[in-house]
Each structure stands twice: as structure tokens, then as C-alpha cells.
């Protein structure tokens, strides 16, 4: 490709973009709308995944509540027996007093409400650390057979729910994105169609003269690509602004929720590099595809 050809292609592409600027805006808008939704779905998936991951690590332990009034000796024996179980890495004992203290600490000023308690409602508890999460079911079954064990609590359900949720978000998001991608390709191909039709005489002439494909198709493909790129840039800017705004908004409204979840949230800074690459690729792809679709339809001499 010589420089003259490239400059011709750029000039033509810009000229026709200016001529069809209304449709151009529509295309850019649709591309960026798709990408923004894609971006938020991606971030949502990342966050839910991350939460599931963190939860998994945090909750690979089993809480064994011991029946009220069990003898100290028996409790010690139980601890020894628990250690022998296959799949158990370690065992830690938590007295009911310790549990109460911890809750008091957590609650801070609100702990005054706990002063009125006549009895400590927390049970003595063994925290059983698993060496292998996949053996959790067997370990739980064995733990439940012990005398003096009141209840065995394991947060696997919570973890599973999170994993299911992230799966759903992923699939649902993928569906929406595919539909939106098709719509954008359609809108861009329509924009390009208008350009092609408005330049039909010129194109026909070029084909009679024997202009190479680069000259004939180049400007249209470039126009499509640029619409895609502009759309991506807009989407990236809006996501950068919008994501932090949403986090702030949520933080203002649902403080408790956020402070509880803040450990699991993925900041926009962590994903923006990947988003830029993904958005640019998809934007350029949509633009090119849109152009090619309409060129295939309308250029046929």
C-alpha cells in the first residue's frame, strides 16, 4: 500500500462520515451502548466470581457446635477424635465466652444491647479446618455421629449459591451481549449502506476504470472501523466514570452492604486495561463486519 492510496482512503472515509454524521452518531451510540453493557456484565461477572472465590477460601472450615453442658473432658476427647478424621487439617476450640467477646467487638458501640443477656447464647465450638474441600461431605457425616455434637455448620451452600449466581450472570450476560452485537452490526451495516448508495456512481465508475479493491472498499471498511473505535472510546470513558459513580452511590445508600462486600469488589482500575483491549477489539470487529456485510450486498459489478 502506497501512502497516496492510504491518504485517499482516509480522506474518503472522513468525508463520508461527515456527510452521514447523524447515522454515524447512531452507530457510534449503539456500539458504545453494547460495549457499556458488555463492560458492566463483565465487571459483574468478575465481582461475583471474586466473591465466590473469596467465600470459598474463607469458608473452608466447619463449625461444630457442642451441646450445652458437655463435660470438659469429653470436649477434649472430641477434639482429639476430630483430628483423626481423614480430610481434617486442624482443629481449634472456641469457648462460648470467646464467641461472645468477638461479637461484642464486632458490634462496637451497639454491644450495649448484649449486656442485658442473662445467658451467653453462644455454644462452645470446634472450628474444623479442612485439608481438602472435596471431602467436606464425608467429614461432616462423621462429625455428626459424635455424641455431644449439637449441630454442624458449613457454608458450602452459600458458596454454591454464589457460584450458581455467577454462572447465571455469565450466561445471561453472554446472551444479551450476543443480541446487542448483532444489532450493532446491523446498524453499522445500514450506515455504511447509505454511504455506499450515495457514492454508487463513483464506485461503479471506479470498477469500470479497474480500481483495485483497496480503493473501492478501503474507505468503507475504514469508515466502519472508525465508527467502531469511536464507539469503544466513548464506552471506555463512560465506564470509567460510571463504575466509580455507581460504587459511590451504592456506598452512600447501602453502607452496610458495601462495607460487608468491599473486600470482594473489583475496582475499575483493576479491569480497565483488559476492558480497553476487549472494547477496541470488539468495536473494530463490529465496524469491519458491518462494512463487509453491506459491501457484499451492494458492490457487485
Amino acid at each position: 500500500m502506497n501512502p497516496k492510496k492510504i491518504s485517499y482512503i482516509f480522506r474518503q472515509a472522513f468525508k463520508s462520515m461527515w456527510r452521514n454524521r447523524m447515522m454515524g452518531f447512531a452507530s457510534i451510540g449503539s456500539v458504545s451502548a453494547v460495549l457499556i453493557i458488555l463492560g458492566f456484565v463483565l465487571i459483574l461477572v468478575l465481582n461475583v466470581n471474586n466473591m465466590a472465590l473469596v467465600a470459598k477460601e474463607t469458608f473452608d472450615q466447619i463449625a461444630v457446635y457442642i451441646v450445652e453442658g458437655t463435660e470438659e473432658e469429653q470436649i477434649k476427647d472430641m477434639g482429639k477424635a476430630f483430628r483423626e478424621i481423614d480430610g481434617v487439617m486442624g482443629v481449634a476450640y472456641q469457648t462460648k465466652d470467646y464467641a461472645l467477646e468477638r461479637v461484642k467487638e464486632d458490634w462496637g458501640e451497639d454491644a450495649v444491647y448484649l449486656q442485658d443477656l442473662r445467658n451467653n447464647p453462644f455454644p462452645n465450638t470446634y472450628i474444623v479446618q479442612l485439608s481438602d474441600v472435596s471431602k467436606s461431605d464425608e467429614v461432616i457425616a462423621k462429625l455428626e455421629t459424635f455424641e455431644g455434637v449439637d449441630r454442624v455448620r458449613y457454608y458450602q451452600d452459600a458458596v454454591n449459591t454464589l457460584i450458581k449466581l455467577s454462572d447465571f450472570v455469565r450466561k445471561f450476560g453472554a446472551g444479551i451481549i450476543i443480541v446487542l452485537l448483532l444489532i450493532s452490526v446491523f446498524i453499522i451495516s445500514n450506515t455504511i449502506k447509505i454511504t455506499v448508495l450515495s457514492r454508487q456512481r463513483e464506485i461503479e465508475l471506479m470498477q469500470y476504470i479497474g480500481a483495485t479493491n483497496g480503493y473501492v472498499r478501503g474507505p468503507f471498511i475504514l469508515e466502519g472501523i472508525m465508527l467502531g473505535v469511536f464507539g469503544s472510546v466513548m464506552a471506555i470513558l463512560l465506564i470509567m466514570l460510571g463504575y466509580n459513580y455507581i460504587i459511590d452511590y451504592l456506598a452512600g445508600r447501602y453502607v452496610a452492604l458495601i462495607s460487608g462486600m468491599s473486600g470482594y469488589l473489583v475496582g475499575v482500575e483493576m479491569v480497565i486495561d483488559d476492558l480497553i483491549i476487549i472494547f477496541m477489539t470488539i468495536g473494530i470487529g463490529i465496524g469491519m463486519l458491518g462494512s463487509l456485510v453491506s459491501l457484499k450486498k451492494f458492490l457487485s459489478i
Partner: protein
Amino acid sequence: MIEFNNVTKIYKKTFTAVKNINLKIDKGEFIFIVGKSGAGKSTLIKLLLREISPTEGIITYNNQDINKIRKRSVSEYRRHIGFIFQDYRLLPKMTVYENIAFAMEMICCQAKSIRREVPLVLSMVGLSDKAKYYPDELSGGEQQRVAIARAVINKPETVIADEPTGNLDVETSKEIMKILAEVNRRGTTVIMATHDREIVNHYHRRVVELKKGIIIRDVKAGGYSYESEED
């Protein structure tokens, strides 16, 4: 140089546009293709430009079967041929100079050679003083002269003109013919489809007459046919 070998074109499986065409055109010839509208002149031209493919038969250009040219290379093939339309088809937003330069720009050509060649060709068609005019500021004859300049600027071996004088009066047509004759004199093959009786009779060149898609006459130096006089 150009050979039609038993070429038949059937549109939509029912309408036979041209049938069993056998035609040989040598380099440097000037040939009129005559016949009423619907006789198959345009089909013949479209076949030669490879806008359409024959249903049967082979068309060769310099011994190459043009329908075996790959789609990508069709543009290269078309550079052998300069094409002149009845309705000129100049680009309205470009000046005369730019219209001609455009044809060079599309194909190759350094800016330097464009600046050298365009004035030469403009002077050949007698429009040196109109280089900066826009097409709608020119008469029909002048526009067609620009179109001829555009068709020959890349020095094609062959020029095909489809009713180039169709929209012009007698006097202007003569000017156009003079230029085409000059193009031919410089060695370019000229194929001209027309139903302008006077021109054909005046020039006494080879005439191929089509009727209902069949060649009914092919004479070395003839006039317009009796057949057509019955119109």
C-alpha cells in the same frame, strides 16, 4: 486480440440476449456494432467487460479466457479497456482536471506523472482551457470529451464506447467521432455501439450488425444496414 467463440447469454433461463456469437476483433481495428435497442449490443459489451458471464461459449482477450480471471484480478483486466458511457458519468463534484486525474489515481501513478499526462490528454480532446470547470458548466459534447479523456488517460489497448453520441446533436457527434478516430489512429482498438446511421455511413469502417441477439452482418467497410432502414 478479442475473440467471441460461440457465445450465448441467456438471462433468467428464458430470455436469450445473444446467441452463438462468433466475433474476432484485431488490434487497432475500429468497429461499429449496430442494431436496434434490444438487439444485444449492450449484452455484448457487458460480456466483454466481464460484468456478466456467458451462459455458453468462451470470450478471450489476448488469448486469455476472461471468465477464468479470478474475481480479484478483474480490476487488472479492466485496465486494458477504457469505457465511454452514453451519459458521460463524470463525477459532479470534481473539476474536469480532477475527473481525469481520478482515473489515474485509482490505478497507480505518481502525482508527477498525473501532472504531466492530464494536460496532454486535455489538449488532445481540445479542452485545455476548461480544466478547472465543473461538469455541469460544460455542454454535453464537452462532457463527453472529458469522458473520452478519462477513458484513454491510462493508455488502454481498447476503448469501448456505448452510444457515445446518443445524447448529442449531429455537429457535436462529429467532434466526438473525430476524437475517437484520433484515438484509433494512435493504435487503440475502438469498439463503438451505436445506432447513429449517419456516422456509420460516413466513416466506412467495419460494421457488425446484431438482430435479436444474432450477428446478421459483419462487413469490413460498410454502412448502416438496409434492415435498419425499414424502421
